[in-house]
């Protein structure tokens, strides 16, 4: 089930607060569409820290690589990417999945390792909501 904008808006303030804490930055910089890497300077250790904080706050589990796995959905790995580069189908799937990311940020061709550069605070709101829904009775 897709998250509604209302659900995202509800948890955004807490996700923004945790993001600001993890990155040690002013919360005013944490806008819904800010790229964590390009705009907020996040690095891999920051992602681990943010995920830890989100898991504890929202009582969810976010396994490593979960966003990419969710984005791939029912596409096989071969349908999604070839030698580390997204296929046309993979790129379209990713654009639809990360609908919160402005279209101009998607590169063609796009490598799988570049996907985290697209992640915004809203991306993390959506992953929290998905993981909550995944364990809901």
């Amino acid at each position, binding site marked *: 089930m897709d998250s509604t904008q209302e659900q995202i808006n509800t948890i955004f303030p807490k996700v923004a607060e945790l993001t600001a804490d993890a990155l040690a930055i002013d919360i005013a910089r944490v806008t819904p569409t800010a790229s964590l890497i390009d705009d907020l300077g996040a*690095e891999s250790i920051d992602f681990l820290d943010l995920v830890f904080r989100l898991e*504890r706050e929202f009582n969810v589990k976010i396994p490593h690589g979960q966003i990419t796995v969710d984005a791939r959905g029912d596409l096989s790995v071969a349908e999604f990417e070839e030698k580390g580069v997204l296929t046309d189908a993979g790129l379209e799937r990713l654009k639809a999945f990360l609908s919160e990311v402005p279209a101009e940020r998607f590169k063609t061709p796009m490598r799988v390792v570049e996907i985290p550069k697209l992640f915004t605070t809203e991306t993390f709101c959506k992953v929290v909501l998905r993981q909550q829904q995944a364990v809901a009775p």
Partner: protein
Amino acid sequence: MRPLEGKHALVTGGTRGIGRATALKLACAGCNVAIVYYNSHQEAETVCLEIEGMGRKAFAIQADVGNPDSLAEAFVTLKKEFGELDIVVSNAATGVLRPAMELTLKHWRKVMETNALALNTLAQLVAPMMTKGGRIVAISSLGSMRAIPQYAFIGASKAALESLARSLAQELGPRGIRVNVVNAGAVDTDALKHFPNREALLGEHARKAPAGPTLTPEDVANGVFLLCLPEAEMITGHTLMVDGGYSISG
């Protein structure tokens, strides 16, 4: 009777690599084992099932060892489950692999808090639970003594860890708590896969280590086990090299 029968042990970072091997070794020796982990949920579940399969009690707690509040929260559960503790292995570590000239204050804090401060926090939390004495073992690496490319802050944190262990050994000695370090050579764990010079590190170890070309997580776990034995009662403040003799070879 197993050598550590009925003891209660805690291993941080116990889901993978050296931590996992240590948790399994201590369980095999008779310990009930608690695991502290950061993000590896599935791996934590798997290692606990393996330990339970040996007939021991096992459980995993998620915590950030570099954050004293997070560790204190984990200890609420730990006290409830175990009451007392006999063995603590401070193994969890993090790192930023970059040249020193590119590292920042943020990196310093994260690496030092996770790799060095955690030992002090653990000691403060476990000492009251070690009423009959106990063993604290910290896992270090060759970077504490040698300049390894891209390893600057991790190496500094390991040097700090070893120094801190000596101070804790001195302070906690009268309470029957022994504090030692196992300094591991190049072990091909998941952590090493992130090293740009992984092949060179493993190759150099294979070429120089007189005890054999390959060092495994189990070899390091065996070193920890030795320091936890009753026979190691008079060993404290020591750094035990488990590197197949690599570091003594010119």
